[in-house]
């Protein structure tokens, strides 16, 4: 249908668009722009705002905890892209390529299952599993004659202990995204490659992965942007970011700046920085989504 006049736009189209647009603007977009605006002020969240220009942004460059948190986010990106996606791809490939495997539904259900769990609940469960004295994991270590490890307290490993649980929850997500990507590859392509004598590894490397390129790029983008925003497990499992902020991430650090120390202007500079980085990393996703329409 073609819209003929501006009265059609006002009478028909506008009423359909306005409610969603209003919610989106009021509760997502305007707050985000506000964060950019507030980043140029010194503000405790209650009193008057004082314009300070770029001071908050300059403070970022010398805030060691901020850079440590950013580094931990990058660790999380590396683990998500380097573990979740390859493992998900491998599991999806094994289920697809071996038709004689029994219990496929069971495996699919089991791998995706952690995605259903509330992250806060997972965080508490793993806190018990990691518990240094009497926790089941250290119990196992002592049974094997190994020394106990302070999984969440030791500043040299605690960030990895948390990242492991994030990976544990999210691998199933990339597994089903890979399954979806593989299912759109025509079976003739795979069959003819097998008839031509391609090994299973060759098939994966030379045919499946190239055909899944845009699917995998989307997975990487989602994993990277999700890792930049991540909050829940780090907040609950390692109180206060751990000794020396060893397990701080950007989301927990700017959360504390706002809600514990009322340095709202500064935290907004961090928030604006985080938004810019996320948009740069997520640009591929936005472009693909627009293309798909």
């Amino acid at each position, binding site marked *: 249908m073609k819209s003929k006049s501006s009265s059609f736009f006002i009478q028909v*189209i506008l009423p359909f668009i306005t409610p969603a647009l209003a919610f989106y603007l009021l509760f997502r977009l305007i707050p985000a722009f506000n964060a950019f605006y507030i980043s140029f002020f010194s503000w405790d969240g209650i009193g008057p705002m004082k314009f300070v220009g770029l001071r908050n942004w300059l403070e970022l460059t010398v805030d060691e905890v901020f850079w440590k948190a950013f580094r931990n986010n990058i660790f999380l990106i590396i683990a998500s892209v380097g573990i979740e996606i390859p493992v998900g791809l491998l599991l999806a490939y094994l289920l697809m390529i071996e038709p004689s495997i029994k219990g496929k539904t069971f495996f699919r259900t089991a791998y995706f*299952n952690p995605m259903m769990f509330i992250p*806060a609940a997972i965080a508490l*469960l793993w806190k018990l599993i990691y518990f240094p004295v009497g926790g089941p994991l250290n119990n196992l270590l002592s049974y094997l004659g190994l020394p106990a490890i302070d999984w969440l307290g030791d500043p040299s490993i605690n960030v990895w202990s948390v990242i492991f649980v994030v990976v544990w929850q999210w691998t199933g997500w990339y597994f089903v995204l890979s399954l979806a990507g593989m299912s759109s590859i025509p079976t003739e392509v795979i069959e003819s490659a097998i008839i031509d004598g391609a090994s299973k590894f060759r098939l994966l490397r030379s045919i499946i992965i190239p055909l899944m390129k845009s699917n995998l790029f989307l997975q990487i983008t989602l994993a990277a942007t999700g890792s930049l925003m991540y909050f829940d497990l780090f907040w609950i499992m390692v109180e206060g970011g751990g000794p020396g902020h060893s397990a701080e991430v950007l989301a927990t650090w700017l959360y504390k700046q706002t809600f514990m120390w009322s340095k709202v202007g500064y935290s907004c500079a961090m928030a604006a920085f985080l938004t810019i980085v996320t948009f740069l990393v997520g640009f591929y996703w936005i472009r693909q989504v627009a293309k798909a329409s």
Partner: protein
Amino acid sequence: MVKARLVLVYLVLISFAIVFIFPVYWAIVSSLKESGEIFTNPWGLPSKPLLDNYVDAWILGGFSRAYLNSGVLTISTVVAIVILSSMVAYPLSRFNFRGRDKLFYFLVSGYMIPPVVVLIPLYFMLKSMNLIDSLFGIFLAYVGLNLPIPIFIMRSYMSSIPREIDESAYIDGASPWYIFWKIILPLSRPAVAAVAIWTGLITWQDFLYALTILLSPENFTVPRALLNFYGVYGNMWAYIAAGFIFAILPMEIFYLVFQRHFVRGLTAGAIKG
């Protein structure tokens, strides 16, 4: 040779299944043990399974109230988002007007704004509206925050419905509202299901907003109540394990019953085709 490979494949598949299932197994057996037994027998089955921990955890953790709050919030957010996203997707997919694609782009790209970034200014906005520690306030936040992906899902689905269907109705004199409610929305049932699952899961699981906006126990959702429960009874591991089961159970049941819909619905929001 073929046999050996198959054994290896099974070995990989089964070891990963164990990694994903074992923590949950541990939570289940621990929730049935006396507190002392969790330490003396950390991995085995309970010597004498008891359900008392569930009763205690349910009452002490305030789970009746938390279930009610989470249930009401999740359902109302799902309903609101299904209605808003399908309404906006209808003209975006079926009418030509200036700036249509830009508007779509604009609505969906907001997904890349981190929720924690939105939260900070939003918190002060809700505070000035007296909507902190209010289920209505967090409902507004959830609806606005989670619109982009549902709009994307709805629009891609509606674009695939043949235009002849509503064009003939339009020629017969049906109004756009009639066409939307009586023709397009019923035909979009798979997209409604996908949006409902995506929104339901994300609302049910949310911790960040519940932590910040909800302050008093009578407003706590399940994740928030569980954290509070841990704060008081953290040394009672059997209680925490039972609380974990409470927190995961409703979604788990939905997932096991509607599994295919879950997987399809959630992937629809991330990747097309």
